[in-house]
């Protein structure tokens, strides 16, 4: 086993960690940094529950050696909202449109959709469905998820106050 120093930004905060070579990004996020919003579902890159952004690119944290994120900028679900009082329009839309049920896939869904809207700010429903193929929901299906993303794409706001959607 070897150990590796990684210096990277996590949700805008500089971090320096020493990690064992065999740890994956998801291990470090959840167990070292306590960022448990990112879930481990299938562990084989299929379900999308561990979706995170590395330098803005959507990747599976379960398939990425932690040593590889040295020098990068990592964004997890915890880093999307600008502050405690606000949500992103996408997070707000998921709440308003009921884009989730049990919630375990939701961080991955919202991270994946964030990457989609970054690349295609006004996607078609077909583009949304195709892009989101990699994020599985086993509760409630995909209609509300697609609806939430399309609604967020309509929004011109950069942030939405939490109380407007009844979240405390």
């Amino acid at each position, binding site marked *: *086993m*070897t150990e*590796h120093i990684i210096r990277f930004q996590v949700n805008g905060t500089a971090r320096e960690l020493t990690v*064992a*070579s*065999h740890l*994956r990004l998801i291990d470090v996020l959840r167990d070292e940094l306590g960022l448990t919003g990112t879930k481990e579902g299938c*562990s*084989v*890159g*299929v379900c*999308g529950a561990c*979706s995170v952004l590395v330098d803005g*690119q*959507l*990747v*599976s944290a*379960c*398939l*990425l*050696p932690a*040593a*590889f994120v040295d020098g990068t900028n990592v964004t997890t679900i915890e880093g999307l909202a600008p502050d405690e009082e606000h949500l992103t329009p996408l997070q707000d839309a998921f709440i308003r449109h009921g884009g989730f049920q049990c919630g375990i896939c939701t961080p991955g869904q919202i991270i*994946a959709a964030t*990457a989609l809207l970054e690349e295609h700010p006004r996607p078609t429903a077909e583009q949304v469905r*195709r*892009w989101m*193929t*990699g994020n599985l929901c086993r509760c409630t299906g995909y209609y509300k998820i697609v609806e939430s993303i399309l609604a967020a794409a309509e929004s011109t706001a950069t942030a939405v106050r939490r109380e407007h959607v009844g979240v405390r």
Partner: protein
Amino acid sequence: MRPYALYQPESLAEALDLLDEHGEEDTHVIAGGTSMVLLMNMGLVQPEHVVALRKIPELHGITSADDGGLRIGALATHRQLELSPEVRAYAPALSETFEQVATVRIRNQATLGGNLVHADPAQDPPPMLIALDASVTLQSRRGERSLPAEELFVDYLTTQLQPGELLTAVHLPPLAPGTRATYLKFLPRTHDDYATVSVAAALRLDGDGRCEHARLALGGVAGVPLRARVVEDALVGERLTDARIAEAATLVDGIVDPPDDARGSAAYKRRMARVWTERALRSLRDQSDERQ
């Protein structure tokens, strides 16, 4: 996951030295990680040494050659290849092949070199690369060699790669004007799945409407991505009538040996190999006709 020693060389020479030094049995190479991390996490491979390629500048890049060909560094990701203007200018069907691989999340991470050396015969890029007469460059401390893409594959998850050797680049020769290519992926389940059967083809017709160049390769129908020379031979010199195409497509039956699995029974895949071969050839014939 079993702990291992990770090396992150910053030059090709350094990587080849590491591979040479650590021998074959317990050393693996990692590029994007989508196959290797999965295999290690499941305990299917348990290397002592892992050489990561990501910091090696020589392995990056997608560049058009002066002669109209294309050089793809082994670390080009599927997503980079999907979006690359160079790849699209070379052959739109090649961009579309990469666009059909897995999900955007996997395409962001998975590299072409990793795809090829993983050698799963149901993967998308290999048949298309074979149909476009691609070759691969293999390098070791002992030197460099080039192989036609189809010769890289030996069997399921097995390649010609020798201990100490790295696949460093893929080369595509210039496409003769008028050559049309297509990749058809038969996916009865979801978009992100491996193909049940896939067909890549490249065709060129002469001024009289006779076929002067044909390449056909199939995915998911054998232990390797399979070049269908019998079909190519049955097309060259011929007028591509529906009957001629249908007859040529039946010849895949003699060369495929698909596995029974969750994506279909062997008998079904055998049938689909013929059906999708016929569809690919007809679509290329029709595109060429429209052009004339």
